[in-house]
């Protein structure tokens, strides 16, 4: 406990040190990150997660903070770690069996069991866009089509050659899940996805990628190779290529029955259940006012087993140390716990509210730990339980400014942050959006104001190159200090925070229809006009084209880019394999380059 004493002494000298954090803080931050990355890739449900959890709990014990709501710091939760194919998968056409993984494969969210023989209807891209102002003007693959009790044969993705406006409109309804939902609303018996002829893809069969939404539907959903579907259409005298050309132009193509094809299937998927654990400690407040909960996830990607790993080439399968994501946040959370306990012991911190410190697991697999936690309260609204959730996810790469996300979740955040930043003196960029891909969202969805600290994305994100030597420890410690002071302030006052519900931006984050892949890494912290890139993913089209860290993307495919939304919009409109011009500003000069997007799936 040498560091504690040192901080205590420095504490009296705060005039000089108020704005900077102490050397001891920085050393402590470093030690935490080193220990956590040493533990390995910290994939939830593995031994590496255990090791990290053991380290964190030992630290909490040493800090002298009590376990929350239990004798133990650990709060285990069961989750589905993945799905594998069972032994009994079958796909038969007119009594002929096809080969699993070669000719067909169930989708991960398919219904399970035996599905009796039924006919097949071709339904183009299988997209129904809701009716707009003018009835009948919407895109609808099911016009005049009766699919009741039959399998629908649906092409993957969406029309390739339509205008970008149309593309963006349809995009939200083009994901596999949307299409299956749509088929179910049309009372189909099942869905057969097929890759249209001449479509560039990595694999014609949709991979059995586990995406954390565990629920199996009732409807069987499989993908088959183009050959099988082509044979069906050829046999009935249809020219698939011609149909495809029309479809891709966005022209209406009436769906049709495929006579003489009867399909039956047995779907057998087995979920792998595992256990992860949240680690939760707290400082008790003097009242039972709603608590302040400060969190950070400690899990990461292991060896990159999940689809969110961005490892390329030689890196594939290597340990993903996740120094920034999110050993940095855990380090910050431990510092915060240590600091606030110390202040409490010095009588400088008299919390009215409980202050809960939560180290989440399963974040990388889909916010599992925080999600499990909020659901244990069995309430739809947690505003009576929690005043606010503060979150630290990726706080190790402070460059120009700290990004405070979720500002729009309460009107008070701006002034609270400004006030508590006075002793810290960080440059802060505030972002309103509260629908964040981090644990804070689990709370936001239960009407709790959130605030998430983030120091920006980078080229090492989700790769084995996210290592401890790249961490800005002073920035980490300052970020932790700011979050600690905000927590301290909130927990000492009775004042409630008003909760602001935001409209969710349309299908943000789903990339159902996004086909083209460029591999640029936007710097979300930037508020420059254009999209500042912190680099390009290794081996990606953007890297091959020569995109560098610090490039400000201002034009793509002839469209001016002013912000990330413009960029997403244009990306959705790009065609795989078709060269586009990109214009960036680099060292105050405009640089042009050509990028050839590849297929995302």
């Amino acid at each position: 406990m040498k560091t504690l004493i040192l901080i205590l002494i420095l504490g009296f000298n705060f005039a000089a040190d108020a704005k900077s954090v102490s050397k001891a803080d920085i050393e402590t931050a470093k030690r935490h990150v080193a220990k956590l990355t040493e533990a390995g890739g910290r994939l939830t449900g593995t031994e590496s997660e255990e090791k990290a959890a053991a380290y964190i709990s030992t630290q909490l014990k040493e800090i002298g903070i009590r376990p929350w709501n239990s004798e133990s710091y650990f709060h285990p939760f069961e989750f589905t770690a993945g799905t594998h194919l069972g032994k009994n998968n079958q796909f038969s056409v007119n009594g002929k069996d096809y080969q699993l993984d070669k000719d067909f494969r169930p989708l991960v969210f398919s219904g399970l069991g035996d599905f009796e023989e039924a006919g097949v209807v071709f339904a183009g891209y299988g997209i129904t866009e809701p009716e707009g102002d003018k009835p009948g003007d919407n895109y609808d693959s099911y016009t005049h089509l009766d699919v009741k009790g039959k399998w629908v044969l649906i092409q993957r993705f969406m029309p390739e050659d339509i205008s970008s406006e149309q593309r963006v409109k349809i995009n939200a309804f083009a994901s596999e899940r949307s299409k299956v939902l749509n088929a179910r609303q049309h009372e189909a018996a099942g869905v057969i996805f097929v890759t249209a002829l001449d479509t560039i893809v990595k694999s014609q069969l949709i991979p059995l990628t586990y995406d954390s939404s565990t629920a199996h539907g009732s409807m069987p959903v499989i993908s088959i190779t183009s050959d099988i579907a082509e044979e069906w259409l050829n046999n009935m005298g249809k020219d698939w290529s011609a149909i495809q050309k029309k479809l891709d132009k966005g022209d209406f193509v009436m769906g049709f029955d495929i006579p003489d094809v009867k399909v039956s299937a047995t779907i057998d998927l087995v979920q792998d259940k595992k256990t992860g654990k949240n680690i939760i400690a707290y400082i008790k407040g003097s009242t039972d006012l709603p608590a302040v909960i400060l969190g950070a996830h400690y899990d990461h990607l292991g060896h990159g087993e999940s689809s969110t790993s961005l490892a390329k080439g030689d890196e594939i399968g290597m340990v993903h140390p996740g120094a920034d994501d999110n050993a940095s946040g855990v380090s910050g959370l431990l510092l915060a716990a240590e600091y606030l306990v110390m202040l409490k012991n010095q009588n400088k911190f008299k919390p009215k509210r409980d202050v809960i410190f939560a180290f989440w697991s399963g974040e990388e697999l889909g916010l599992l730990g925080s999600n499990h936690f909020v659901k244990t309260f069995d309430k739809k609204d947690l505003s009576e339980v929690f005043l606010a959730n503060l979150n630290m996810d990726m706080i190790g790469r402070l460059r120009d400014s700290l990004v405070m996300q979720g500002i729009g979740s309460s009107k008070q955040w701006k002034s609270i942050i400004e006030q508590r930043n006075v002793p810290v003196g960080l440059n802060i960029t505030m972002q309103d959006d509260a629908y964040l891909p981090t644990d804070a969202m689990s709370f936001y969805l239960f009407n709790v104001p959130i605030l998430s600290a983030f120091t920006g994305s980078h080229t090492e994100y989700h790769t084995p190159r996210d290592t401890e030597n790249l961490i800005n420890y002073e920035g980490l410690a300052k970020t932790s200090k700011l979050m600690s002071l905000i927590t301290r302030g909130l927990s000492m006052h009775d004042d409630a925070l008003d909760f602001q519900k935001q409209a969710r931006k349309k299908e943000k984050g789903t990339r159902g229809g996004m086909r083209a892949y460029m591999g640029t890494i936007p710097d979300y912290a930037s508020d420059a006009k254009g999209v500042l890139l912190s680099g390009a993913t290794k081996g990606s089209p953007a890297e091959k084209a020569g995109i560098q860290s610090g490039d400000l993307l201002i034009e793509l495919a002839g469209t001016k880019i002013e912000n990330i939304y413009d960029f997403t919009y244009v990306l959705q409109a790009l065609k795989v394999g078709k060269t586009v011009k990109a214009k960036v500003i680099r060292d105050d000069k405009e640089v042009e380059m050509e990028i050839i997007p590849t297929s995302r799936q």
Partner: protein
Amino acid sequence: MKIFIPIIVLLCTSCSQRNYQKSTFETPKPPPMSETTSPKDAELMTNISRLTFEGRRAGEGYFSADGSKIVFQSERHDGNPFYQIYTMDLEFGDVEMISNGVGKTTCAWIHPDGEQILYASTHLDSDALKKQKAEIDFRNSGKERRYSWDYDEYFDLFVNKGEELTQLTTELGYDAEGSFSPDGKLIAFASNRNAYNGKGGMSEEEIKLFELDKSYMIDIFIMNSNGSDVKQLTTERGYDGGPFFSPDGKRIVWRKFTEDGMIAEIYSMNIDGTDKKQITHEGKMSWAPYYHPSQKYIVFTTNKNGFANFELYIVDAEGNHEPIRVSNLEGFDGLPVFTPEGNELYWTRKKDNNNLSQIYRADWNHQVALQALGL
């Protein structure tokens, strides 16, 4: 002497300076940058950041002697459109309201004991609440006047200590802009009390002028920290205000306006009013002087670069050298203070007409400042 009828355009409030009087001619364009600037401009002030207190306006931040807190005024109290006095603890950012929420307040200063807080307030004015309501109604009407300071004659000086509030001055007239001496025994302040008590000896012309501009009769006073033994230190017509003690407590620095209110220069004097010395000779509006804790130089603001473009300058304490430009920022930069260690500079900044004033800070390089001033 030809007397201007001044149009008062207040850009910012100040214990150090209240009025900018603008004649009817157009604002001159800033002259080309030909004057002395620091060769190491960027190195004097680094890591500029905005403290950004909430509220409509915030300003006049002054440190406690140990640097652990700052006292400031801000318009943020519900139901009162005027400034109230707050402290902010600089270790945690805790903000505490010091004044009682009634009336107008301004110009606070923390006693070296860290507990007593001196400020000026009109809360004893029986019309205080009426004035609040009038101002709120005015603002709700959608109009926004250019900021004006009215030198309310009910301003008196008070000292707050914990729950206790002690009144130090009782005379009619504006008593404000107070600060403690470094040993806490004395208070320097500004007052136009002589215009009300008949001691001013004003001519009829002057009485008319005073009606237009209450600052015309403001002079510097000094008294004991309990309010006893009040002595007048300046007597000349025109606004003398914004007095601060030197770090050794032997001198007072202030800014002195010409009678017509068109020009202000920085002066210093002994605390008994002797040895008055003009420090700047810019012929513009130079004001808000504040000593560096080394006492070697004074930071102030001046509009020599354009009427509304106030910039921070430093000048050696004796006024022997040309002032050196410190800031080079758009908009108003004024009311500078150093931290007690002298390694940081805080000031009030109003970026443009769309922004109200807020407090900014920067790291201060004392060595570069000494070099630049040839000290």
